[in-house]
């Protein structure tokens, strides 16, 4: 189904509301809210409706009192100049927002930490420790003959994963999409989308997901033709595990899908490291790749810009005048909890559901007007949303494809990146 473009309906719209970044949405711009009229998942429909409001009476505020944008930026700069260690949280931004944020954090001597980065930095550490063998969505769509979902059902993170990458009509090559084998590792997952269109049920290894490290050890051992103790690891017959190992070894192009937030935080490095080992082992004789699902709330957009501009991933401190990367020290929750941080900037243009934490330190909130705040911050600046009110760029789950975001309707509100740059400019004046 495609929705014809009309004077008010825009087609081929890219969606910034999850890391999959579907780019086939049709959005009607005529009403008070932006209405996704084709190819929208629930998250897209509600997100465009909520964030995409047109006229808004929202104005900046200083200590709860209305202020001009200039006044609010000046007050934010004053607070940052007075702060010894400001921290930047939220960070649900597109590339342009991230660029502005980088200019500000460097000038302010702060630390950036994305709302999803408790998982992100650990996944990054696995890359730093050993690396990986990864693939991207179009490869999955056209080549994957066996998809192993480790602890995730994919759709909780990226609702249209199966629709767009698995149960498609055709592939570039000889592979029949309906013939793909789907395997879930772990219980309590929504496995319904894993049923093939012709009714084949997926293979579900149902066990407590906190035991994922054991499960991956079993699989790694069997793929490496090493012995495994017991005849039913995690309560599942060894023969089933062996059959899965054999299927992976026999597949032409298997894909191992995982998502950081689906793992227990303390097990994330262990699980991802085990996935990397499994994939490396399989590549000795056949092809196998992993596909991390990330990118929600612009975490990969913020992370990519941070890394390319300065060399380091997030959780880098700019306090000393040169970047200092220390992901253990520089988690902003930790810095706030220990009292090491004395100001919080909450920047978000894509997420209006997660509020800034209550901290007791001076707080500057730069966020869409639809974000509900538990407490009034010292400075509040409402901003527009990229992909709805202004153009932008969004890095997709595979870290390869960047989608262009469209301006669907105008907003009187500034973009988050512009606000960050305006504060940085003010801060420079205050400091000099």
């Amino acid at each position, binding site marked *: 189904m495609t929705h014809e473009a009309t004077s008010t309906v825009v087609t*081929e719209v*890219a969606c910034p509301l999850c890391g999959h970044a579907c*780019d*086939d949405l049709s959005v009607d711009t005529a009403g008070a809210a932006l209405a996704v009229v084709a190819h929208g998942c629930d998250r897209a429909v509600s997100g465009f409706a909520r964030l995409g409001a047109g006229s808004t009476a929202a104005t900046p505020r200083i200590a709860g009192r209305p202020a001009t944008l200039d006044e609010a930026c000046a007050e934010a700069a004053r607070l940052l100049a007075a702060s010894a260690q400001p921290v930047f949280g939220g960070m649900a931004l597109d590339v*342009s927002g991230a*660029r502005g944020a*980088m*200019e500000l954090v*460097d*000038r302010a001597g702060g630390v950036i930490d994305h709302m999803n980065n408790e998982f992100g930095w650990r996944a990054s550490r696995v*890359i*730093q*420790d*050993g*690396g*990986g*063998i*990864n*693939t*991207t*969505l*179009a*490869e999955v*769509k*056209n*080549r994957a003959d066996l998809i192993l979902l480790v602890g995730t059902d994919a759709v909780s993170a990226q609702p249209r994963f199966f629709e*767009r990458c698995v149960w498609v*009509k*055709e*592939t*570039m090559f000889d592979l029949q999409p309906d013939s793909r084998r789907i395997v879930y590792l772990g219980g309590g997952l929504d496995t319904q989308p894993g049923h093939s269109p012709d009714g084949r049920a997926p293979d579900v290894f149902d066990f407590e997901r906190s035991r994922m490290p054991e499960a991956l050890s079993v699989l790694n051992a069997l793929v490496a033709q090493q012995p495994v103790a017991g005849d039913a690891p995690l309560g599942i017959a060894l023969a089933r595990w062996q059959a899965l190992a054999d299927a992976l070894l026999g597949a*032409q*192009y298997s894909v191992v899908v995982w998502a950081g937030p689906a793992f227990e935080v303390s097990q994330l490095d262990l699980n991802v490291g085990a996935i990397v080992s499994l994939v490396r082992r399989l*590549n000795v004789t056949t*092809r196998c*790749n992993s596909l991390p699902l990330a990118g929600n709330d612009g975490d990969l957009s913020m992370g*990519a*810009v941070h*890394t*390319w*501009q*300065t*060399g*380091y*991933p997030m959780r880098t401190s*700019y306090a000393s*005048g*040169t*970047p200092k*990367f220390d992901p253990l020290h520089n988690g902003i929750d930790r810095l706030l909890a220990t009292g090491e941080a004395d100001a919080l900037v909450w920047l978000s243009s894509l997420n209006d559901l997660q509020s800034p934490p209550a901290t007791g330190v001076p707080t500057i909130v730069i966020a869409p007007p639809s974000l509900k705040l538990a407490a009034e911050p010292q400075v509040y600046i409402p901003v527009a949303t990229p992909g709805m009110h202004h*153009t932008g*760029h969004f*890095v997709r789950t*595979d*870290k*390869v494809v*960047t*989608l*262009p975001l469209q301006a669907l309707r105008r907003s009187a509100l500034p973009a988050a990146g512009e606000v960050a740059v305006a504060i940085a400019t003010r801060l420079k004046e205050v400091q*000099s």
Partner: protein
Amino acid sequence: MSVIKLTGGRVIDPANGVDDQVRDLYIRDGRLIAAPDAHDRISAEYNISGRIVMSGAIDMHSHIGGGKVNIAREMLPEDHRGDPVERTELTRSSCGHAAPGTLAAGYRYAEMGYTAAFEPALLPVNARQAHMEMGDTPMLDTGGYAMLGSDDFLLRMLAAKEDQQAINDYVAWTLHATQTVGIKVVNPGAISAFKFNQRKLDLDEQNAFYGITPREIVKVLSRAVHDLGVAKPLHVHASNLGVPGNVDTTLGTMDAAEGLPVHLTHIQFHSYGTEGERKFSSAAARIAEAINQKKNVSADVGQILFGQTVTASGDNMVQYRNAGHGSPKKSVIMDIECDAGCGVVPFKYKDQNFVNALQWAIGLEIFLMVDDPWRIFLTTDHPNGAPFTTYPHLIKLLMDRSFRNAMLDTINPDARAMSNLAGLDREYSLYEIAIMTRAGPAKLIGLADRGHLAPGAAADIVVYKEDADRERMFEKPELVFKDGELVVRDGRIVKVVRGGTHAVKPEFDIGIEKKIKPYFERFHSVRMNNFKISDDELCECGGGSKLIAHACRKRG
């Protein structure tokens, strides 16, 4: 109007045949002019008598932006710690040695007198990110070579025996869609072959699915680039990189272009024989002889220099094979969008390691045995052979025979014994260095107003203090002007500027989109219209960089 005058410098401008002549230079509105007219006034004068003056240097092959570079940055915090760039009133903080942040890269290039750099492996599907990274690389003009040759669409066209005209349209469409200045092919067809579990692909070996050979790919792509009137010859990363005995593949790849212009990149990695006890030897003499004879062939060297670096390549097949040699031992290998791939492997070149030492010697042998400096280019394939910051050291190796031989005496003795480097007396002149690093790249890429100092040229100008130690001379120019603005003084940034983005605009039949659009909808993960980068969007990607568009005159 106001005019800047550079007085009394010793000008080296090979594009105009000027070799060390004392001349005054005048800059007005970002460009060189012959002399001020009655309406002009000299607003600033720099007395540079005795100083050497060249146009801004141009790096025609440097991995400065795109997904694989960012993977390298992310995976190597240990690379960055010792190499910080401080925040100043003018500049932002950044860091990194082999895989620096874009800010550090831009500042350092400018501080060495470079005013342009070209990303040679821009994956079409990753073009936006590459342009965004290059846009965040201050000081430099940038551009990219779009990678084709393992993309399903082209291989499908070849398998269906579509005619050259259709392929030309697709190549031109790709150049427009990705906003690039040339076409590159990496291990032709093999990135695709690796996805079908092939582990090597010789020049005349077929891709298992399409039945197409690397030779056919080089042939049609070099023809397409030529027919479309794109100045930059097809940029070829040949098959069998790093494999002992690959010299025959490399010579065969030159022939695959069938006499049309072809550029063999990082040719050092493709100049290996199988002689000697260890079955690894220099084939530099055969390669240099071929380049000397075949006037359609150009090459950049991809010199290795000893120390820690990281290799970042589109060649996932070879990078997977070499991952075990990584130091530190880690690697990221990717299959990408039925379009391309990449592989990132950190590497430490050691002067006492036989293979590394011989690679070092082979690169220098090629530099010294290729006669025509217009067809050989000074690169380290940054960061694959060494970071670009080693260029001044490399220039000294080329210009100073006694220094070179002293270095040669310190490397692995078995490698030294296998190399004829000690017998090569040639020392590059400043004029030849200016060709290799300025005039040559500008001519090769088709940058008519760059790489020279004639009236009308963009005022990208570098002033060096003459120094017998060429490394010291080239690492810290006294003055650098970018588009007529003084941006570096005594090797330090004094003004931060944003460069432009070069892209070619060949003519083609837009009717090709009738095939491409439904193809994207059937098979790809993005729509064609979201794949293409418009001129306006390019500027936004570049954070405000200007598009520098180059028309092409069809030759087909």
